[in-house]
């Protein structure tokens, strides 16, 4: 069925079910019963009601979505029952959008654009979407997430949708496990040229040698299969498992926080063996944390006590993209299935985060636990300061960190040039220490950079790229054959690294 583009105030779609039925009818799905159509409308309404009610929507039909088309030709077109090849695309605009389109005023579309949602001709109709957190009902400034700009268009105007990719599972070609792989690659592939966005058939073909049964209709994947797929798609994934003791669980949560602060989205397993629940979701960010909370998280490091920023973040909560729910769901690690329980699914009450996969760049040989352990050893034994200070550890590219050095306005230009002259690998682990007061003002007094291509078996000086603490510069001294901190004219406090999530 052909259709011209339509405009709707989102409020109409959120409140008027008949308007949603007329939108769904543009998908040309003759074979569906009214009950199935009702399910589609309910799925769509749930998604739209999670967005602000002052937005505007432009709907374009006969939309060719690469992800759905891939599933269509591989699977749906081979069925007896007819499925449409086409999707709808909803484009969302901010409150200031004028529905009278004037192409002399492209800014009306570009400036107000908040992302898109593809509607598939399936009961699980929520297809590929990239939505700005600004479009969500919940206050936008309460979350920090990994973001990517994805090419899009509306009414012929080229646009960039900024957010974290999301889609619902269709339950036949894509379960939560495949959607998790697809989502991660949609993020990385659009952000870095080293990776490429993937499609369901590529995931299927990668996993062909690792599957003992047919893959379609899909019955899900094991966690190892997800890791294998990520390896084949260019990552060096690391699998982490939670432990049984309180300290092991704290450590596991701390590692999650460390990777998220580093801007590494994680494939997370929610499980409850008793209820036979196994679900894969993507952790993409954190709730914003009141920095003063950090003093509630003391950790022993040797004889010193530091306040752990990573523990603080882990405690406050994370943001997830879950393919059963609208994008950007918040939950704590103590109650990760909160959004299911709130919807009446009490079976999910004992679900826990049991594992996560960190899809690392393949040459990041030193992972988070080693970087934190080594940083703690250095803070505990190498530098005199540390007691009562806030400690934060994260991974970043040296490119991003070197850009940060250029913006350290507390340092004179010559100091910045000297720091920029230090050779660095592609990725570095950054550990910062600051007094609580410095921390609240985004300042640090100790900066430690560890070589992310380093090893837990190597000696200290091989792993340390840079250690500047309390105005002392630490390096290996050939004469005394030891690490020595020499006084410098560099300021004792300077700007903290702003982090990789926004």
């Amino acid at each position, binding site marked *: 069925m052909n259709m011209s583009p339509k405009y709707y105030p989102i409020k109409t779609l959120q409140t008027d079910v008949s308007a949603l039925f007329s939108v769904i009818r543009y998908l040309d799905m003759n074979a569906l019963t009214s009950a199935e159509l009702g399910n589609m409308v309910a799925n769509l309404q749930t998604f739209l009601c999670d967005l602000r009610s002052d937005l505007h929507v432009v709907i374009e039909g006969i939309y060719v979505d690469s992800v759905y088309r891939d599933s269509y030709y591989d699977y749906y077109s081979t069925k007896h029952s007819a499925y449409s090849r086409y999707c709808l695309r909803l484009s969302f605009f901010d409150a200031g959008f004028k529905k009278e389109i004037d192409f002399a005023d492209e800014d009306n579309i570009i400036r107000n654009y908040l992302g898109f949602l593809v509607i598939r001709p399936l009961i699980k109709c929520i297809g590929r979407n990239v939505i700005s957190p600004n479009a969500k009902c919940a206050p936008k400034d309460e979350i920090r997430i990994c973001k990517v700009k994805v090419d899009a268009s509306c009414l012929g105007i080229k646009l960039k949708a900024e957010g974290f990719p999301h889609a619902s599972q269709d339950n036949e070609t894509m379960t939560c496990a495949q959607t998790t792989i697809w989502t991660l690659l949609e993020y990385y592939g659009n952000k870095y040229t080293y990776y490429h966005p993937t499609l369901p058939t590529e995931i299927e073909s990668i996993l062909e040698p690792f599957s003992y049964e047919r893959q379609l209709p899909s019955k899900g994947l094991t966690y190892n299969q997800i890791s294998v797929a990520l390896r084949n798609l260019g990552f060096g994934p690391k699998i982490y498992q939670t432990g049984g003791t309180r300290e092991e669980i704290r450590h596991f949560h701390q590692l999650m926080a460390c990777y998220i602060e580093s801007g590494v989205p994680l494939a997370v397993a929610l499980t409850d063996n008793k209820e036979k629940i196994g679900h894969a979701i993507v952790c993409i960010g954190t709730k914003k944390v009141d920095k003063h909370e950090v003093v509630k998280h003391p950790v022993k490091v040797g004889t010193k006590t530091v306040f752990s920023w990573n523990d603080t973040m882990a405690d406050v909560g994370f943001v997830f993209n879950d393919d059963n729910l609208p994008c950007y769901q918040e939950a704590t690690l103590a109650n990760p299935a909160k959004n299911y329980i709130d919807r009446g699914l009490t079976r999910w009450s004992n679900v826990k985060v049991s594992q996560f996969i960190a899809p690392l760049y393949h040459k990041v040989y030193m992972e988070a636990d080693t970087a934190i352990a080594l940083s703690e050893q250095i803070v505990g034994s190498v530098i005199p300061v540390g007691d009562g200070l806030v400690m934060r550890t994260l991974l970043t590219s040296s490119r991003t960190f070197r850009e940060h050095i250029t913006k350290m306005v507390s340092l004179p230009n*010559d100091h910045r040039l000297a720091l920029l002259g230090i050779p660095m690998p592609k990725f570095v682990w950054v550990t910062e220490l600051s007094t609580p007061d410095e921390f609240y003002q985004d300042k640090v007094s100790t900066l430690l950079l560890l070589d992310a291509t380093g090893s837990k078996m190597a000696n200290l000086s091989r792993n340390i790229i840079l250690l500047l603490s309390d105005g002392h510069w630490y390096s290996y001294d050939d004469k005394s054959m030891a690490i020595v901190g020499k006084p410098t004219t560099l300021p004792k406090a300077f700007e903290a690294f702003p982090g990789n999530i926004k």
Partner: protein
Amino acid sequence: MAMKDYPTISDFITKGDVVKLDEKTERDIIQYMEDYAFSVESNETEAYSQASMIVLNC
């Protein structure tokens, strides 16, 4: 145009008290990290075996 050398960190090092890590402490750290590596590896074995059993499909 004359060439110019940009400053290095050694240009900003001053005379004063030096903080020195004694050799024994460095040996302790290396030993700690070796022990740590061993404990992490045994956890990893458990993680891989668990990861092969749980099917994620909800």
